[in-house]
């Protein structure tokens, strides 16, 4: 289980994440929602140890996150981050070299499912293909926690289905999935819990079905209430 306690991160004068406390439990799929700049990415980066909080702490199974937790926590960033010289095959080899939970067979299966080949140069991929490559290499790990930052951003409808299926495929009672998005509808039926971030604060965490049953509200309705618009970037 992962726990954030009063986590704050500042970049210069700007506060990116402000006093966020949050527990992520296994067996759940979280939709982390909020407009760009609401602190989703920074929070994810702190959980995986890429960024270090100014105050507060992040615990994975009771101990602070760091080198050991990175073995079990997989993170996929929005932006491409592979070395310019790499092909899709090199990306796979790199992950195999560093992550014990990475499966080359699974990677190859996902690549062909996404209609990608190993000889494709990372540098020359279109944004849609890059998004597929990133998700394939991330989901080929057998991690305990997956943090996927905007995996559906800039991707056509068909590819979205592939990616959503990929996410569902990884779901299991001992796995935690966190998918961030500013597109609410995409995640509505896939996620069971919604995390709403606004202006570097955590606004609320709520069960999606409970919300519908108790107040007849969908995630999109709640999103509108919180942000004052319908989840479309303004």
């Amino acid at each position, binding site marked *: 289980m992962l726990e954030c306690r009063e986590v704050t*991160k500042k*970049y*210069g*004068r700007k506060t990116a994440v402000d006093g966020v406390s949050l527990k992520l439990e296994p067996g759940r799929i979280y939709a982390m929602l909020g407009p760009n700049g609401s602190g989703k990415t920074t929070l994810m*980066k702190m959980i*995986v*140890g*890429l*960024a*270090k909080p100014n105050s507060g702490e992040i615990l994975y199974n009771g101990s602070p996150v*760091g*080198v*050991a937790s*990175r*073995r079990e926590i997989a*993170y996929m*960033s929005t*932006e*491409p*981050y*592979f*070395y310019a*010289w790499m092909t899709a095959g090199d990306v796979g080899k*790199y992950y195999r*070299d*560093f*992550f014990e939970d990475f499966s080359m067979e699974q990677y190859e299966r996902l690549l062909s499912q996404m209609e990608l080949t190993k000889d494709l140069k990372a540098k020359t991929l279109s944004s849609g293909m890059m998004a597929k490559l990133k998700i394939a290499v991330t989901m080929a790990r057998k991690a305990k926690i997956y943090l996927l930052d905007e995996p559906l951003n800039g991707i056509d409808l068909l590819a979205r289905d592939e990616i959503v299926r990929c996410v569902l495929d990884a779901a299991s009672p001992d796995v935690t999935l966190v998918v961030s998005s500013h597109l609410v509808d995409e995640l509505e039926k896939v996620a069971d819990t919604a995390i709403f971030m606004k202006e570097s604060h955590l606004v609320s965490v709520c069960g999606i079905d409970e919300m519908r049953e108790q107040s007849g509200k969908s995630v999109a309705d709640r999103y509108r209430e919180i942000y004052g618009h319908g989840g479309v970037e303004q």
Partner: protein
Amino acid sequence: MSKLMKYEFRKNLLSKLVLLAFTAVGEAAFLLGLFLKWENGLVIGISTLMICGMFGILYVGIESLVTFHRDLNTKQSYMLFLTPRNSFQILGAKVVENGLTIFLTGLFYALLTFLDFTVAAIRIGRIKEFIDVIKNVLENFSVSVTVHSEDILIVFLAILASWIMTLAIGYLAIVLCATVFAGKRLSGLISFVFFLLLSWGVTSLFNVLPDPETMMMQNLLSMGYSFAIALVLYGITGWVMERKLSV
């Protein structure tokens, strides 16, 4: 750590290959000049080889600083810092790979020079005559040299060591730029000034140390000092990265 080093080596492979290619051209010109008594070839060969040797070592070092800067300040940083490796391992892989590359490059050129000397000596017959040829070539660059055969290697190694120390100062400056000075205005300039001050500082400190009698001892001391400082700087840099670095 060997896996990290493998990728560090791969990152700057291209420039190493280019350097090798130029060296091969220089060497070919040198040998052609030597065997066909083509004097221009000899001049071109020797000057190309010298430039490759000196600038190669400089370039390999500077490129590693550029790569390190990129590894901290672009999205590429995720490649390193997502892996289950700590900052000491990540930095260590860079330092060791780069140090080794510089030493091996140096050694390679030293051996090549020695080989070329030998070949030339055999070809020309008398080493004296050959050294005169080289002196003539060097005079064209308005460089004058005096050759002390025993001390050459150790001087050379001491220079390499101090270059590695300088690079370690560079690593620290780059990390400070990305951590302590991050988000501040002129952080790059501040880091550069820090680099110059620290370089001056460690040189001054060395000059305070007692001067040994022989040149050999002097150079050995210099080498040991460089490595000691580089090691201390590595510790400090890794420590700062581990605590403060957000990529």
